[in-house]
């Protein structure tokens, strides 16, 4: 046996011991013990190792464990899982490179656990394993937000955690009910067939940022750290798309949901000032395409969805990275404060433009993936959806790509003079940009990874020209609106979104109820309220260390109780 073969054999045996993702999760525990270059090397080695481990697995591998009486399928290695695993690993590698200079051990381990658990979620073959990984992503990722270390991030992180854990709880409840209904825990096609699957659907929907369930995304991502947002943008929502594709492919209701998702974030993106939040809205908009693809559910549409996930993870990561670099250097990503940075950060500018172009333009990843979903919609005769997606294509390109580049790097020079982004960030961004272009220019490789056979040719003259028309005229529209002074100026502001419901309305209702309650109390419910507070204070009083139940009684009392208990036992048996 040659050395190479031995190495591969060893890798295969290692791979046979752990499901993918676990290397990263376990390795993350060591991160706090390491320092400096060793830690950086270790953090980079983990996802790389994980990637090799995954690639060493043959398709169709399985691995299971027993948890209580249930057989858990820790590993189900099929082509969908492989595609997601591949893109998640790549995203993890790029993000780790991007975060190389970040010396926070907490953030480093959290990011690795987060990526690792997202990866192992993709390989979960049953709902319990999925649930565990699902919650693990929630709990680990919140530290990426909290690591910002300011009050706003703390509160935002808490809201994020509540929403994410809530999604997990719904998933668990749905799983239990589903199990009771069908006796199966397998995570295969579920479909909206009962109450249990309904709950699971909502759980997935929360993570996929369905309309009105979406706001945690725009709330949390811009509050995470420079490097944290990059990690966040890659995994959580795409995991949800994966789960939807696996469990609810072809569920019709997803098509209108996705169409709405594809459009409404654009309105917000137009007027939002915080550029990372603009990107978050953009993320939401692109998820809409994927949800539509899942909803259509044909092999072609699912191929398109998976392809778009791959392209999207990379270019959205690239965009978040470039805005992160700006935030890192300038200290703000408010459009109203930025402008003219191309002078200081030319490479970042260039890479950001590549990222923006990758949303739709030919020769980039978005072009070859997104058009699959749009074509799938047309093929299945969803005319309205087709038009909506076309509109969203133009809008997204303009207000999520061009806008970000324009306001950050061009526009009015606000005078900031800063250094170019650090080398590791540039390498990460460069890698992402190369991938974007690579996918766009050689779509064959991407198509080879997709779950079903592909016979789609993106580069026809007709397709290229029509898309160019669409994009060029949307840019023209931008220029026209700017010139005509119709384009809304960037203002420092907060935009109300569905988070208003829980950040304002619920507190209002709460206050209102409290007010009504107080009024009612004044009108004669006083005694009841008094009773309640009296009960509470009594509970505290008797359980405090100096209270009756919180305080060791004298020996005599115990003896008395022993006698009482004896008496009671005898009484009962006679």
């Amino acid at each position, binding site marked *: 046996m040659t050395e190479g073969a031995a190495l591969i054999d060893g890798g295969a045996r290692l791979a046979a011991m752990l499901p993918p993702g676990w290397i990263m999760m376990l390795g993350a525990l060591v991160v706090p013990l390491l320092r400096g270059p060793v830690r950086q090397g270790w953090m980079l080695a983990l996802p790389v190792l994980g990637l090799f481990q995954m690639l060493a697995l043959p398709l169709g591998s399985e691995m299971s464990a*027993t948890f209580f009486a249930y057989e858990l399928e820790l590993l189900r290695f099929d082509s969908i899982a492989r595609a997601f695993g591949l893109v998640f690993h790549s995203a993890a590698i790029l993000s780790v490179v991007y975060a190389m200079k970040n010396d926070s051990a907490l953030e480093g381990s959290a990011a690795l656990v987060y990526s690792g658990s997202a990866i192992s979620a993709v390989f979960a073959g049953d709902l319990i394993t999925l649930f565990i990984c699902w919650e693990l992503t929630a709990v680990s990722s919140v530290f990426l937000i909290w690591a910002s270390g300011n009050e706003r991030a703390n509160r935002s992180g808490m809201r994020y955690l509540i929403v994410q854990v809530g999604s997990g709880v719904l998933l668990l409840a749905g799983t239990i009910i589903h199990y009771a209904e069908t006796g199966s825990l397998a995570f295969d096609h579920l479909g909206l067939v009962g109450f249990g699957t309904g709950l699971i659907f909502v759980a997935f929907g929360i993570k996929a940022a369905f309309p009105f369930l979406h706001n945690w995304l725009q709330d949390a991502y811009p509050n995470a750290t420079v490097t944290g947002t990059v990690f966040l943008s890659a995994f959580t929502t795409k995991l949800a798309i994966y789960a939807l594709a696996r469990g609810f492919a072809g569920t019709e209701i997803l098509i209108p949901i996705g169409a709405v998702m594809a459009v409404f974030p654009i309105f917000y993106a137009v007027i939002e000032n915080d550029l990372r939040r603009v990107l978050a809205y953009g993320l939401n908009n692109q998820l809409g395409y994927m949800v539509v693809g899942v909803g259509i559910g044909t092999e072609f549409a699912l191929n398109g969805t998976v392809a778009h996930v791959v392209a999207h993870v990379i270019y959205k990561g690239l965009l978040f990275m470039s805005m992160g670099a700006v935030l890192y250097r300038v200290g703000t990503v408010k459009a109203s404060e930025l402008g003219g940075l191309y002078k200081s950060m030319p490479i970042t500018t260039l890479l950001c433009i590549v990222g923006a172009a990758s949303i739709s333009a030919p020769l980039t990843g978005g072009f070859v993936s997104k058009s699959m979903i749009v074509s799938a919609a047309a093929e299945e005769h969803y005319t309205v959806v087709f038009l909506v997606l076309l509109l969203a294509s133009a809008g997204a390109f303009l207000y999520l790509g061009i806008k970000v580049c324009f306001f950050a790097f061009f526009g009015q020079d606000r005078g900031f003079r800063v250094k170019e982004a650090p080398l590791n960030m540039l390498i990460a961004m460069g890698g992402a940009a190369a991938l974007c272009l690579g996918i766009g220019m050689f779509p064959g490789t991407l198509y080879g990874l997709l779950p079903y056979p592909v016979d789609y040719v993106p580069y026809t003259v007709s397709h290229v020209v029509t898309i160019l028309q669409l994009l060029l005229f949307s840019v023209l529209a931008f220029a026209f609106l700017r010139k005509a002074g119709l384009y809304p100026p960037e203002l420092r502001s907060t935009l109300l979104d569905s988070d208003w419901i829980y950040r304002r309305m619920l507190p209002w209702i709460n206050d209102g109820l409290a007010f009504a309650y107080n009024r009612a109390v004044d009108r004669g419910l006083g005694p009841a309220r008094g009773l309640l507070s009296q009960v509470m204070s009594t509970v505290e009083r008797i*359980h405090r*260390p100096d209270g009756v139940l*919180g305080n060791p009684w004298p*020996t005599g009392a115990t003896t008395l109780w022993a006698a009482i*208990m004896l008496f009671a*036992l005898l009484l009962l048996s006679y």
Partner: protein
Amino acid sequence: MSEHFPALQVLLPVLTAPLCLLLRHPTLVRVLSLAVTVGCLGISLALMEQAREVGTVVYEFGNWPRPLGIEYAVDTTNAFVLVIVSMIAAVVLPIGCRNSQVPEGREYLFYSAFLLCFGGLLGVAITGDVFNIFVFLEISSLATYILIAMGRDRRAIMAAYSYLIVGTIGATFLLIGIGLLYQMTGTLNIADLAVRLEDVKETRTVIVAFAFAMVGISIKLAVLPLHHWLPNAYTHAPPVVSAFLSATATKVAYYLMLRFIYTILGAGFVFDVLQFDVILTPLSLAAMFIGSLAAIYQTDFKRLLAYSSIAQIGYMTLGLSLNSELGAAAGIVHLFNHALMKGGLFLVAGCVLLRVGSTAIVDMRGLGSRMPLTASALVIAGLGMIGVPGTVGFVSKWALVSAALDQQAWQITVLILLSSLLALVYVWRLIEVMYLTEAPEGAERREAPPLYLIPTWILVLASVYFGFNTESTLGVARAAAHQLLGGAG
């Protein structure tokens, strides 16, 4: 050799104790005790294997056949208890008597007392003779009083004294019960008792015997109204002793209760005729709530743990009171799981006491940055107390809830979940103090020594490991419960 394992299980610690008294040399004594505890762990694991193979391993002393002589009888249930006791002993003993008030040159006294206590507990669990149970119970209790009195301040002596009184009352009650049973049957052998009691079960003497024995055991087990020796004893004892006792002493008492109810008297008699569950169920539920509530309002970490133990004992007795195989399995598996978590937490308290000098909760401010490893161990074990999935606490709750649901006891299920929320409150209080408040002025960042940290983390990591690997705990507990109930029909 292996046929002598049942005898050696108890003999090793009990005979090493006087040997320690003779040797006196601190290091020698320490190494010897360690070797003995590790050896006992090995023996208990081997016994578990044997018991799972042959059902019941019997060892007759002096080759006198039962009921003439004393026999040791090991089935899956007490093998499991033996494993718990010896495992905890082997893990915590390396810490030794550091940080208590044992003067230099007299450490050998600590080790002899510890080994006696250890051997006594093993003896209670292993023996198949009710009078022997009483004897070993007394051996372990007397050693326990000494160990508790070795705490850092004089309150420890007070605590030991009141435990002495209460514990003696408990033992006496048990002895009265045993005496009455002997009077009715003329035998002390457990298996023999079970056979001979069949004819005289409905007599008043047996009922009175049962009542006395149950109250006696309940005192040792710290069932709710009889629990008041526990907080003081656990609070003031040296940390190692608290960890050991909390993880083993009540467990052995719980085992006794199982043995008396299922093997000696039979579940049908206890629950259907005597309606023991009418008393035990409300007491268990009350313990779950009162214990947790009291834990919430405590100001001392160790005392908080002690009250939480009372609540956890409530879970165990609740499983028993459900009167089903699943319920007994839930109780048995919680023995193991609670031993891991609570043992780990008391060792955390030991780390805190060592470095901070006090276990008052206010003194634990900012512990997350001062002693990160200690604090994170507390958090993980605390998550187990709440019952977060992925920890042993979840396994116990799961087993208990499914046992309750199996009996259609919805209201009990709801109460179990509610009381878990109370656990969430007191654990969160600790997390808040440790991580979200600033350390007091002048507090230095100093982690506990490896001697403390390694045992702590062994228990904490085990509590996570067995949260996933449930076959070796829940599986064994189910087998044990099956054997236990199968014998009683």
